[in-house]
């Protein structure tokens, strides 16, 4: 029964981490690149209509995801079902996935804005892509490990409200 309870918390941990990862990247993007460094532009003349719509939806979604995922996180311990490794795996997967989407589809395909202006953009893009792919790989690895780990010792590690 205890193992069942742990399994039923898999998706909640994954989703909470995933959504928080998306929200975190979007927040860092806004705070660091838009506000502090002024590298990104609020609106770029090459922005397409679809880019504007995509950005609007992702912004609203990530804004909601940050708050919602933290409430989901607060909900997990009171049900005795927080699995930190699974949560962090979800976080990295969400963060990497969103950064990759932002860097490829939104920046390049929809021409939303570039990472930085009046510089050679290639190294910036490369750093952007490599960090996002790394986050996705580590995220997936953590998710896989958390599944293996908790099915081995699942009976002893759960349903103990701390």
């Amino acid at each position, binding site marked *: 029964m205890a193992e069942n309870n742990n399994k039923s918390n898999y998706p909640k941990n994954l989703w909470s981490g995933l959504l928080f990862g998306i929200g975190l990247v979007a927040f860092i993007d806004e705070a660091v690149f838009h506000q502090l460094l002024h590298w990104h532009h609020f609106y770029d003349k090459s922005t397409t209509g679809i880019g504007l719509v995509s950005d609007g*939806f992702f912004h*609203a979604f990530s804004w909601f995801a940050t*708050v*919602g995922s933290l*409430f989901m996180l607060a909900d997990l311990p009171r049900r005795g079902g927080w699995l930190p490794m699974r949560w962090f795996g979800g976080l990295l997967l969400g963060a990497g996935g969103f950064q990759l989407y932002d860097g490829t589809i939104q920046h390049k395909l929809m021409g939303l804005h570039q990472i930085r202006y009046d510089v050679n953009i290639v190294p910036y893009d490369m750093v952007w892509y490599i960090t996002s792919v790394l986050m996705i790989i580590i995220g997936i690895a953590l998710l896989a490990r958390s599944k293996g780990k908790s099915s081995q010792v699942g009976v002893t590690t759960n349903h103990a409200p701390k």
Partner: protein
Amino acid sequence: MHLNNHIHDGSEMEFHGLSVQLILSVPFFIALVIYLYAAILSKRRKRSWRSYRIVMWITGIFCALAAIIGPLATRSHSDFTAHMLGHLLLGMLAPLLLVLASPMTLILRTLDVKHARTLSHILKSNPLRLINHPLTASFLNVGGLWLLYTTSLYQTMEQNELVQIAVHLHVFLAGYLFTSAFIYADPNPHRTGYIYRSCVLIIALACHGILSKYIYAHPPMGVPIDQAKTGGLIMYYGGDVIDLILITILCYQWFKGTRPRMNEAISIK
């Protein structure tokens, strides 16, 4: 009707502006008096009314009044930035504060049984159910803003006082409907699920953000480009701040509403 107001000399314009301001502010003063009277009545009947709610109501009324009467309202005719600041107060912050003051709960407990029953009957009626539904309320609220800023309506409003009164009333009422459709501080006979409300809210917020960026790049008719840019930025970031409060309250209501019971038989997602 006073079309082409701008051609008239300054003093006459100011006079007309003042009459619009007075007409618009009367309902808010009445709402303030009724609420305070009801709160006193409730206390006199030994049914306490939380004072933070009274503070919310007073602050909300003053936010709305700041947008429709006084220096900000006067400036908003010539300055799009001031106009946008006013709309943020009238259409977003004031409704949020007023909804949190739970006015319907207060009125229902103050009225005698017969009148309270009539009022709750009206609140349960189908027309109110329709316009207070998250989808319709979002459409009325954000759709109205799209209409205002992407058509010639904004320019018409600047020249026609009746249109101006109608637009301001719409912005406020649609803002109130919108807020009360997502966060429940009053008894709501037509509740919708948390996930459903969250999805609709995301769509509504996205459309609000997209419109702010659209205004930034494409000024409404008769608005200089630099004013449209600051106006768009205010709408985008100011909207984000108030949306954050709205989202937090919605999620907190979910968090409280889905508290696990000691003997949990059903799992709530």
